[in-house]
């Protein structure tokens, strides 16, 4: 982990921006002079993890670059809820071109900055899991392979939310979406091979790859800051619950994100040049049921005919993550 986590046992959480900290240790968000890069008034759903993650990530990037930042954005919820014409929430120079080309657009911006002798201006590209792992995958891999000076932020909510919660290649096994209904066998999404994008990013050998969740926002900020210390292609995969698509209460976004980490469903780590350099350990390991049960997209695993077999298979996936990344000491 790239900074010393501070545990606020008073609240039992890693709460952000706490007044108990010395000023220099406080989060970017806790600072009155934060940039509010995504300003209030946007149309995200209540409790949207993507809005939260993007706000923290971009504000942290703004701080890290001294406000010399340009953002390219893929089509998706973040783009749609932030820029209903003629209004915009963005306080950074921002461009939306298409769904699948964001990494390449960012490459073009970075090239323009280099040729103009303005390499002090840094570039982020951002998109949802669909825009990243599916339709934008080719452009993303090209950007990685050329090691273009771009930080790519993927907000993973595990489906095509903007078009009404259809399956993407980041949709977890057994999850119900509009195109993987809770019928048939197995109900919900298939148990496929998955598409582990952080691992694929690492396989490109790029300078920096990390994962984060909106449950540990200071960790997210620290990773954005760390990413900005590198030149070249960087990738940050952020786990962002979606109350609408996942069917959980809006006030549970952070709790669900924390449960994903604490069950091993979503491993949180950092890697440099293809090697893992730090992992966020699980504090108190929980069974995957704890994570699955509050979400309606997994309701068919519980209900009248519980599917202990499928839950066990999801547990296996989490256990494999725990082993692979050494998430639990001992």
């Amino acid at each position, binding site marked *: 982990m790239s900074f010393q986590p501070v545990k606020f046992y008073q609240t039992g959480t890693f709460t952000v921006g706490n007044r108990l900290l010395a000023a220099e240790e406080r989060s970017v968000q806790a600072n009155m002079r934060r940039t509010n890069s995504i300003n209030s008034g946007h149309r995200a759903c209540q409790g949207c993890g993507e809005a939260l993650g993007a706000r923290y990530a971009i504000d942290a990037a703004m701080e890290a670059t001294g*406000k*010399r*930042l*340009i953002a*390219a*954005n893929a089509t998706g919820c973040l*783009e*749609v809820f932030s*820029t*209903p*014409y*003629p209004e*915009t929430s*963005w*306080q*950074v*120079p*921002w*461009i*939306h*071109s*298409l769904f*699948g*080309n964001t990494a*390449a*657009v*960012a*490459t*073009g*911006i*970075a*090239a*323009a*900055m*280099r*040729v*103009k002798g303005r390499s002090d*201006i840094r570039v982020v590209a951002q998109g949802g899991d669909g825009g990243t792992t599916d339709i934008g995958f*080719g*452009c993303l*891999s*090209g950007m990685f*392979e*050329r090691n273009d000076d771009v930080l790519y932020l993927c907000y993973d909510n595990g489906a095509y939310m903007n078009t009404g919660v259809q399956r993407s290649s980041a949709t977890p096994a057994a999850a119900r979406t509009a195109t993987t209904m809770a019928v048939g066998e197995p109900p919900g999404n298939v148990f496929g091979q998955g598409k582990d994008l952080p691992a694929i990013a690492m396989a490109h050998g790029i300078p920096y790859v990390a994962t984060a969740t909106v449950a540990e926002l200071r960790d997210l900020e620290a990773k954005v800051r760390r990413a900005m210390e590198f030149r070249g292609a960087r990738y940050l995969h952020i786990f962002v619950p979606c109350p609408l698509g996942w069917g959980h209460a809006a006030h549970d976004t952070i709790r669900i994100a924390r449960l994903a980490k604490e069950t091993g469903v979503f491993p949180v780590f950092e890697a440099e040049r293809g090697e893992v350099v730090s992992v966020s350990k699980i504090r108190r390991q929980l069974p995957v049921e704890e994570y699955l049960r509050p979400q309606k997209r997994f309701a068919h695993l519980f209900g009248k005919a519980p599917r202990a077999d499928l839950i066990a298979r999801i547990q296996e996936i989490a256990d494999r993550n725990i082993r692979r990344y050494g998430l639990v000491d001992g």
Partner: protein
Amino acid sequence: MLKQIEGSQAVAQAVALCRPEVICAYPISPQTHIVEGLGEMVKSGALARCEFINVESEFAAMSVAIGAAAAGARAYTATASQGLLYMAEAVFNASGLGLPIVMTVANRAIGAPINIWNDHTDAMSQRDCGWIQLFAENNQEALDLHIQAFRLGEELSLPVMVCMDGFILTHAYERVDLPTQEQVDAWLPPFEPRQVLDPAEPVSIGAMVGPEAFMEVRYLAHAKQMRALELIPGWADEFRRAFGRDSGGLLHSYRTEDADTIVVALGSVLGTIKDTIDEMRRDGVKIGVLGITCFRPWPLAAVRAALAHATRVVVIEKSLAVGLGGIVTSNVRTSYGGSADAVHAVIAGLGGRSITRASLARVFAAALAGTLEPLSFLDLDGALVERALAREREQRRSGPIAEGMLRDLGVVAARI
């Protein structure tokens, strides 16, 4: 400076003289020599202050150009055929955003069946995408149109596609007059974008627009293209004064003053048509040719004026609107005051089929004799088509179409 060089090199050098800042490209025949030439200039340092990015697809090429142009850099790419289709979504996006990218299209057929040879199907498929489309008749014009394209695009905040016939022009060695850097610098001012991604003045580009303003945004794109119709002729005059030759403009008429039959075409085939017409003129036939340089925007009034005295129009076009006929012809009909039946579509040269003077002479003679159909296909092998149709009538599983035809033909490579 006069030089005997390949068309692709001429274009590469013209583009380099325009001081591009970001060049991105993905290889496809017959565009390759252009970007290879530019790539070498950037890598060797001959073309300074320019980034050359080897991308992983044409979709990425256009997307990199979009990002670069939105960040205020002069951006260039080149493609053809499948590559143009592969980037189509981004092609529309570039014009929708109003980014003055310049792109060469080395015109080539589109598969299936896969075919690397020249026709205009690629460019025509994007005719309504909001880009200005200029067609070069020869390599000198291809070179000159690129220099004009940067200025035109940047003045209007619109992207410009310079179309040149694949192989016929891109791979032909011709003498061209290459201007000096001073001449080009004097003609083409540095790029001053109307919109730019700048941390000092943050803007959002590419917002979602609903029914309340979408029509207006599209209309504005149309209005800008109409403005291009006003600007282009004056700029052609200015170009003549600065560079000492006629290049660009909306259209070129040749021997049309007293012509009652006017042939309309785009691109390199104009040379063959002119030769054919010269011969017919010697026999006293009142025939001329109208070359369309600017296809988008469509120079409606200029074409109408140029065709005003014609009683018969023959459009030779290297693309086919399947299920309709001629694409250029449809445009010409909007500009012709006489009967629509007097405008004949002749589909020619698809997939690199040679357009010979003998065949053209036959078609023009038929037009004069009143026997030319409203739609015809130059040198179509009707028997070959009939055999394929018969095969389909006779057996349900008639097999792959193109392969069947090739089998009927026997060894064909030598006939191209």
